C-alpha cells in the first residue's frame, strides 16, 4: 500500500454526534409520523405499527451485539415494560404518555441491573442459554402472579393514553404513539452506542485484552444490558398500547428468535440493519401469511444462511455493493464497526 492511499480521518466525522447509518435510520423512523397523514387504510396502519414495534424490540438485540453478546431476553423486558404500563394506567389511572414511557423504560432498566450482575458473569453460550431461560421464567411469573398480572386472562381494557390531556385513542393516534416510542428508542440507542463506540468495539473484539488496558468490561456490559432492557420496555409499551391488553402470549419466549433474526438478517453491524431486517421480515411474514409456529423454524434457517453466506446481512451486502460501485466513501467513516467494516477493509485491499 503506497502512501497516497492513506485515508486521513476528517475531523467532523470523528466528533459528529451520530454516524451516517444512525441518522438514516432515525430519519426513516421519524418519517413514519407522516403515514397517518397519507393513509387511513387500517391494514397499512397496523402493518406499520407492527414493523415499528418489531424494530424497536430488536434494538435490544442490536445493543447487546455491540458487545458480542447474543441476548434472548428481549421479551422478558418487553413484558416488564408492558405490564408496568398496563398496571399504572388501569390501577393508578395515570394515562399521560410521557409518564408511562418513562415508567416503561425505567422499570425494566432497573430490573436489569441486579439480573445483569448475575447473568453477565457468564460467557458465550451460557449467557445465551440463561437469557432464554429468563424469558421462560417471566412467562411463568405472568401466569402465576394472577392477582397482579391477571394470569392467563392478562390485563384487559387499558384506557387510551393521553398527550397533554389529548386522548390518543383511534388507529392513527395509536400509530403516532408507536412512532414516538420508536423514535425515542432509536435516538437512545444511537446516542448510547455512539458515545461508547470505541469501548464497545474493543470489548467486542477481545474483552480480556480490553480489560488488561483498563476498560472495566463488566461495567459496559451492565450498562448495555440495562439500556437494552429499557428500550425493550418501550417496545412492550407500544405493543400493549396497540392491543389495549397486556397478555402473556404477546411476550412468548419464542418471539425472541424473531427479534434476533431481524437484527442478524438486516445486518448486526449497523442500526440500519435492525430497522431493515424488521421491515423486510415483518412484511414477508404478513405477505406469505406465515403461521406463528412456522416462523421460528424458518427464521432459524435464515439466520444460518446469513451467518454462512453474508455475515454483514442485508445492509452489509448492499453497502458492499455500493462501495464497489461508487468506491469513494471510506467504510471506517460510516460508523460501522466489527465485521462489516472489516469486510469493507478487505475489499478495499483486494483480499477475500
Amino acid at each position, binding site marked *: *500500500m503506497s*502512501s497516497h492511499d*492513506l*485515508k*486521513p*480521518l476528517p475531523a467532523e466525522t470523528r466528533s459528529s454526534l451520530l454516524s451516517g447509518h444512525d441518522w438514516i435510520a432515525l430519519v426513516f423512523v421519524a418519517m413514519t409520523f407522516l403515514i397517518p397523514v397519507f393513509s387511513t387504510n387500517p391494514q397499512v396502519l397496523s402493518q406499520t405499527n407492527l414493523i415499528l414495534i418489531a424494530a424497536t424490540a430488536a434494538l435490544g438485540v442490536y445493543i447487546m451485539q455491540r458487545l458480542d453478546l447474543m441476548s434472548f431476553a428481549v421479551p422478558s423486558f418487553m413484558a416488564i415494560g408492558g405490564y408496568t404500563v398496563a398496571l399504572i394506567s388501569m390501577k393508578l389511572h395515570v394515562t399521560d404518555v410521557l409518564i408511562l414511557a418513562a415508567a416503561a423504560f425505567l422499570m425494566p432498566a432497573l430490573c436489569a441491573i441486579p439480573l445483569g450482575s448475575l447473568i453477565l458473569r457468564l460467557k458465550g453460550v451460557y449467557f445465551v442459554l440463561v437469557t432464554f431461560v429468563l424469558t421462560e421464567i417471566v412467562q411463568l411469573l405472568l401466569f402465576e402472579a394472577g392477582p397482579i398480572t391477571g394470569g392467563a386472562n392478562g390485563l384487559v381494557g387499558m384506557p387510551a393514553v393521553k398527550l397533554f390531556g389529548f386522548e390518543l385513542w383511534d388507529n392513527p393516534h395509536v400509530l403516532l404513539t408507536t412512532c414516538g416510542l420508536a423514535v425515542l428508542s432509536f435516538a437512545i440507542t444511537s446516542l448510547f452506542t455512539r458515545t461508547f463506540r*470505541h*469501548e464497545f*468495539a*474493543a470489548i467486542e*473484539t*477481545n474483552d*480480556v*485484552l*480490553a*480489560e*488488561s*488496558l*483498563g*476498560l*472495566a*468490561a463488566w461495567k459496559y456490559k451492565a450498562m448495555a444490558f440495562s439500556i437494552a432492557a429499557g428500550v425493550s420496555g418501550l417496545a412492550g409499551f407500544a405493543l400493549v398500547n396497540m392491543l389495549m391488553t397486556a397478555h402473556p402470549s404477546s411476550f412468548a419466549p419464542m418471539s425472541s428468535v424473531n427479534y434476533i433474526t431481524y437484527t442478524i438478517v438486516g445486518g448486526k453491524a449497523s442500526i440500519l440493519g435492525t430497522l431493515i431486517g424488521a421491515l423486510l421480515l415483518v412484511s414477508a411474514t404478513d405477505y406469505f401469511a406465515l403461521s406463528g409456529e412456522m416462523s421460528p423454524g424458518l427464521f432459524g434457517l435464515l439466520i444460518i444462511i446469513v451467518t454462512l453466506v453474508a455475515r454483514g446481512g442485508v445492509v452489509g451486502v448492499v453497502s458492499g455493493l455500493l462501495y464497489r460501485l461508487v468506491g469513494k466513501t*471510506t467504510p*471506517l467513516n460510516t460508523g460501522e*464497526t*466489527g*465485521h462489516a*467494516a*472489516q469486510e469493507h*477493509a478487505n475489499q478495499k*485491499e483486494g483480499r477475500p
Partner: protein
Amino acid sequence: MLRIDDLHVTYGGTRAVAGVTLTVDQGQTVLLIGANGAGKSSLINAVIGLAKISQGKIMFDGHDIGSMSSDARARLGIGYSPEGRRVFASMTVKDNVLAGAVTLNGREQVRSWDKLVASFPFLAERQAQAAGELSGGQQQLVAIARAMSGRPKLLLLDEPFLGLAPVWIQQISIAVRQMQQDGITVLMTEQMARPALKLAHSGHIMRGGLIRRSGAVHEIKGAALAEEYL
C-alpha cells in the same frame, strides 16, 4: 515500584512460575530472559492479572494487586503490551492506540497521541487504517504505542522485538528510551537478548519457572547470550 514475592502460577498441572521473587525499582528497566516455556509471559500476565496466581504476593506502588481485576490494575498505572501483536483488528490505528488511554481525559489523550506520533510518525500516516491491515511489525508497534498511551507508571512489554526487522527494533528501542527519560519503570521479556540488553539496567535469567541468575546487565550479559542458544 513493583515487588513480586514467592510468585507461583500453575495451569492445571503445569507449574509455569514456581516461586519467583524480584523487585523493580522506580525508573529502572528490568529484563527477563529465557527460552520458550521459561515462564516469562506467565509472570508478566500474573502482574497485569491475566494469569491467576496460586501463591505469593504482588505489590505495586504500595498496593497489594494480587487479587485485583486486571482493569483495576491497568487503571493504577500499569501499561501492558501482550506477546504476539494483539491489536483490535477492525478498529483504526488511532482508536487502537487510544484504547490504552481510557483513564485520560480528552485533552490528555490528544497530548499523549501527539507525543507518540512524534516518536512513531508511522502512526499518523496510518491513523485511519484498520489495524488488522497492517504488517506484523507495524501491529507490534501499535500494541506498544497502545501500552504507552495511557502514561503508565510501569510498562510491561512481553517480547516487544519478536520477529521484527532491525529498523523496527531500533524504533521501538528509541521509544523505550524516551519512556525511561520520562522516569517510567519498565519490565520486559525477551528471548533475543542482544537488543534488549542495550535498554535494560538489570536482568534475570529464567528457566523452568525459576530465576537462575540475576544481576546488572554487564554481570549477566555472557550468561544471557548463552541462554539465547539453548
